[in-house]
């Protein structure tokens, strides 16, 4: 068992989810309620990582995060083959998994409720925190669990952008791949089972929380 790789995977998933969530909330809110030119394009871009082959996405991210790229020059060194580069890549890769559930939840909030919030004197930020997010709570939960689980299991993008550097970019899924190539099938099997267990647990937790929440909302306060 490659504990280092497991820890790295968990760290990567946690950072990605944490940084992605606020971004996804703002994106979902914009897509749900604003009408502006280019809205369709934005929605398509957000959905793109869902259907694009991970290697293609990984290739473009590698180019963008390389030391001699405009971004790399700006940061005084590339993010490719570093943990921070993996976080950026994972955020892009998991973007649709965070935005889609949030978007559906936000679209389900009646327009009058947001307008009632404004007429109560709530600023857009207060309205977001006190009315929209509490009402979109199941969507927020889904977004968290899905981005976490999806990041935990990603492979192609990580391999392209991060390579296979122990302690820096070698995630659990890369480690499994490594073990399989090295004919250490028992070790690969253990790690695969662990990853399966964690993912399954996350999804079950989400379902349970979601059900509990719905029961509470139907109750009389």
């Amino acid at each position, binding site marked *: 068992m490659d504990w280092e790789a497991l820890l790295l995977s968990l760290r990567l998933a946690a950072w990605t989810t944490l940084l992605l969530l606020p971004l996804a909330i703002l994106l979902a809110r914009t897509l749900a309620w604003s009408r502006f030119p280019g809205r369709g394009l934005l929605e398509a871009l957000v959905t793109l990582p869902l259907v694009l082959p991970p290697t293609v996405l990984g290739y473009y991210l590698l180019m963008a995060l390389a030391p001699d790229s405009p971004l790399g020059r700006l940061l005084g060194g590339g993010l490719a083959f570093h943990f921070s580069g993996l976080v950026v890549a994972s955020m892009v890769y998991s973007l649709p998994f965070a935005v889609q559930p949030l978007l559906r939840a936000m679209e389900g909030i009646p327009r009058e409720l947001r307008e*009632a919030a404004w007429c109560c004197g709530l*600023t857009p930020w207060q309205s977001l925190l006190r009315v929209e997010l509490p009402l979109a709570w199941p969507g927020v939960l889904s977004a968290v669990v899905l981005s976490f689980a999806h990041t935990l299991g990603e492979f192609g993008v990580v391999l392209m952008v991060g390579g296979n550097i122990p302690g820096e970019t070698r995630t659990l899924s890369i480690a499994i791949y490594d073990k399989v190539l090295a004919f250490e099938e028992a070790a690969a099997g253990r790690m695969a089972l662990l990853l399966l267990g964690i993912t399954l647990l996350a999804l079950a937790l989400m379902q349970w929380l979601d059900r509990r929440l719905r029961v509470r909302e139907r109750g009389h306060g």
Partner: protein
Amino acid sequence: MAEPGDLAFAFRQERGIPLDCRATCRAGQVLALVGPSGSGKTTILRAIAGLERPQWGRVRCGDTSWLDTDAGISLPPQQRRVGFLFQQAALFPHLSLLENVVMALGHLPAASRRKQAREILGRVHLQGLEGRRPAALSGGQQQRGALARALARDPEVLLLDEPFAAVDRVTRRKLHLELIQLTREIGIPVLLVTHDLDEAMMLADRLCVIHHGHGLQEGEPEAVLRAPDSSLVARLMDVRNLFRGRLRAPPGSGEPGILEWGGARLEIARAPDLPSGSEVHWTIPPGEVLLHQRRRPSRGERENPLQARVAEVIVLGGTASLLLVPLHHPQERLYMDLPRHVLQRNAIVIGDLVGVSLLAGSIHVMTN
């Protein structure tokens, strides 16, 4: 705190829902915007609240300008102190009734909000239900809760968007009475959007008839009903006695004018400034059609007398509505409202021939 003042608004817009209307609502008054669905009433209300931005518009409340497109002023809804009551209550479903009201008390120090919220809920008769979620309240209670939330902000204007459309009749009548009482107490302009004319007649001090976003006529409800500016207003106000006629002679100095109605010549006291021979519409309130009593003839009977047959009698409460077929003009139907006891004393039944008078002063002539 500044004295809450009058609300004045004017909107013009060509794209989307067309608008062209202006009106003023005085503090303490209820102004009803009436018109068929899709006439732009709700858009006007939303533009006042700042939820919608018209192409051109002005909204002034007291001495504050909320919207002035010419001057580039457009305050967001948060800065316009409005109480907005939505058609479907729109209470926050994840919060208790009390928390819903507290939400609109952001202008008070945090420590006093809950106490104030309880007080406001008491004013709309919801004490004891503070802890309930909206889903556990009846339609009427929800609407009362929404009213409490609208009032909590200490608004300068109260905007009501068909607030009673979704509740049952009994509850609606109760809410009407409470609302009348409340508007007297709070002394701010109240705008009521409704397609229910009875509601408007009952609640409003003034009424504005809206059609395709145009303000057609504004005035006291009785005055608009009695003297619509045009046949369109008359139709929108569901005026019962609306007839076509021809102006034969306009009223002169001291002389009555002559209106021709299916061969009969009716004397009229007033008419719009139109040449003789003009096609016009005219109306008479059903309550002012004078019955010739069988045993007690009166002087009014000499004025525009007509013979008619009773086609239908509908008794509702203390009033009897008679549908009459004038003998000289049998295609038309003339409504006459009588106190029920008059109907009984004269023993009028369907099929009877009756004499009625259309008093010259009660006839209102309007342009087509």
